[in-house]
């Protein structure tokens, strides 16, 4: 009885001790860079210090970190690391060689407040140049720091106009690092080479592009050594190959001298032309030009641009298994769709008030967002592997430049110089080994 009474009293008194969970809204008025220290451990080494500097450059690119590089002794104690916290470095990355042969670099990320190691990895050098090592290490560091995929060991390809003696211009295909550094000419044949597209193999990069000949516009494939092979050589135009993530399915444009540009889907078994007849208007894809195809991650959907229904280019998605066409845009002038498998979004350009602007389409939620509002025309965009950047060909006052659009910050970063005419950008996958052009 007494115990029951006690229990009753306790039950009554308990609610007074309960704490209520509240959802508080905190407005982060400003964004700030996170301070980070890159420590080079051991005796001074030129290569390792250079790698540290290059990693600093990579990590600073996104605008999320404020980085300092510092050399340290080989012996690193907890108290030394905790001192860094007092110097306002909450995160520290330490680099050191693991052996005397200096074939492998070890990196460790520390939470300096508790002198606790968060992550660490040993990187065995791939390739011969320290830029490649630094990009590879930055790629492995990046997910730990930001939770995003690394994009430093990528390459961008674009066309560069080269004036010739006849007063016209040829177009060469150049490749460069993600930030436009280390530019190299990959294709320099004395003709017009346009619309480069990368394959999806992360170990063997191949570039597909269209080359103007006297008879047709053929599709040519080249590797990083400059070995070229003809990929498609039909009458008319052959261009814009797009691969699925596994690299086993491909879709490209070809006219086959029929007057209009059509889409051709190819897998291991067969090749077929994509056909569709609109039930309302009886218009078929053959009635218009169909260009800029891109395959979804699993290769079951093709996103492309066509004017077969309205006479103006619109974005459509075609489901290969169901042979069903779905309009994504229904008005205006929309072109150049490009699919991001990471975010499941589609970027495209749309003419708004006479200016081609970048727009984004969320495929899952079926929502369109206009990304840019400035006065320059944007054309031919390409996603970064992480889905945070868009490579765009920008045209303003007769100048064509490649620029990078940062989606989180909504800022543009020019990749090519103002004095050269560049267009048709394409962003590659993140490669296991940093690719370099070795033409003979």
């Amino acid at each position: 009885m007494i115990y029951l009474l006690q229990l009753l009293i306790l039950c009554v008194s308990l609610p007074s001790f309960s704490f209520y969970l509240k959802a508080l809204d905190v407005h982060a008025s400003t964004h700030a860079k996170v301070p980070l220290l890159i420590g080079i451990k051991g005796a001074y080494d030129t290569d390792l210090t250079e790698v540290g500097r290059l990693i600093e450059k990579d990590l600073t690119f996104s605008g999320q970190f404020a980085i300092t590089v510092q050399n340290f002794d080989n012996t690193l104690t907890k108290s030394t690391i905790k001192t860094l916290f007092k110097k306002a470095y909450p995160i520290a990355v330490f680099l050191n060689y693991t052996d005397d042969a200096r074939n492998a670099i070890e990196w460790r990320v520390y939470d300096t407040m508790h002198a606790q190691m968060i992550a660490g990895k040993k990187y065995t050098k791939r390739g011969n140049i320290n830029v490649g090592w630094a990009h590879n290490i930055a790629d492995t560091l990046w997910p730990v720091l930001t939770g995003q995929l690394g994009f430093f060991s990528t390459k961008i390809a674009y066309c560069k106009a080269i004036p010739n003696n006849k007063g016209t211009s040829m177009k060469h295909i150049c490749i460069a690092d993600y930030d436009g550094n280390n530019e190299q000419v990959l294709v320099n044949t004395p003709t017009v080479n346009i619309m480069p597209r990368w394959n999806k193999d992360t170990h063997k990069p191949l570039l597909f592009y269209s080359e103007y000949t006297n008879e047709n516009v053929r599709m040519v494939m080249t590797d990083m050594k400059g070995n070229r092979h003809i990929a498609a050589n039909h009458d008319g135009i052959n261009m814009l190959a797009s691969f699925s993530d596994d690299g086993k399915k491909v879709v490209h444009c070809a006219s086959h001298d029929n007057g209009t540009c059509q889409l051709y889907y190819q897998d291991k078994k067969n090749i077929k032309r994509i056909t569709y007849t609109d039930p309302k208007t009886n218009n078929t894809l053959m009635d218009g030009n169909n260009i800029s195809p891109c395959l979804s991650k699993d290769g079951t959907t093709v996103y492309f641009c066509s004017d077969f229904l309205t006479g103006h280019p619109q974005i459509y998605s075609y489901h290969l298994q169901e042979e069903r066409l779905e309009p994504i845009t229904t008005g205006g002038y929309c072109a150049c769709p490009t699919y991001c498998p990471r975010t499941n979004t589609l970027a495209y350009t749309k003419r708004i008030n006479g200016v081609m602007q970048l727009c984004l389409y969320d495929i899952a939620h079926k929502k369109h967002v206009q990304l840019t509002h400035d006065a320059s025309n944007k054309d031919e965009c390409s996603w970064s592997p992480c889905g945070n950047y868009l490579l765009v060909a920008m045209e303003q006052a007769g100048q064509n430049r490649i620029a990078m659009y940062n989606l989180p910050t909504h800022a543009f970063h020019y990749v090519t110089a103002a004095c050269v005419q560049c267009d048709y950008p394409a962003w590659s996958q993140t490669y296991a080994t940093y690719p370099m052009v070795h033409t003979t």
Partner: protein
Amino acid sequence: MLLWQLKNVRNRHLLWLKLLACSLAAHLLFVAMLFFGYRDGVSSHKFTMHNHSLNRQVMVVLAPTMHKPVANNVQTKQMTLAPSITSANQNKVATRVATLKSAVAKAKADRPAVAKATPVKKAAPKAAPPKKVIAKAAPAKTIPPKIVPTKAVPTKVVEAKIEKTKTVPPKPAITAQSTEKKVEQPKELIEQKNLIAASPTVAQQIMTQSEQMILAQEQNNGPIQIEIPYTQAREFYQQEALRKELSRHWKPPHGISDTCSCEITTYVGNNGVVNDCVITQSSGILMYDVSARAAILAMELPRWTWGDSFAITFKP
């Protein structure tokens, strides 16, 4: 009671009675210790933080009894804001709301950036018999003016309602003269009462306010209503202070995903210095966790957190 007199109680029963009394006393002592000792010493508080912008004002409606938090929809708003309105008046309000909604829609179409709902005040419907309304609207508990927020104008109206019901005896109507008589009351109260005096009756006041609230919600620019019991008011303001302080110091980097969140537990010493700050649930994004922790370390911790520990969940 005669039976409980000492001479009538048998020794066996007396023993039981003594045991019961001792047990009760011990228990009360234990409960008191728990209340004063446990709460201030060992307890941990949990808060959730978001970094998205909060542009709207927060209005607190102090409820004398335990209420569930009000959802942001119109129907519940009517129920909680004007509990005293009779069914007939509720119908009136409902029709009023319908007309107001259409008016708002029209106003939105004409002028997209509508900021205030003041024009609607004039169009307040006629009130029900005020005696009834006051009798129902007046809560039994008295509410001290300290915890009443004074920022937003609509808040004042609500306070005025509560204050009025507390001090003024149930009269059929409240006039301006009746408020002027009580000179010795603080200025704040007089202002509040003048507010009431401007409107014909409390019922009308309630209805007008409910309309304002509905309008505000409709326009999505007005104050957010949070209804909390009186006993939670202190915690609410503590959290508000914490929120403001944190928002001043939290500067996360760009490009953080909307889905990530991290929980940080902070142990504060008796002198207000952070003894330890542990990331109890990481977001998996180191820079995000670190920025959140840096905000806690940089902020000036409020007095109530001293010698205490609290966990904060940061959500973008």
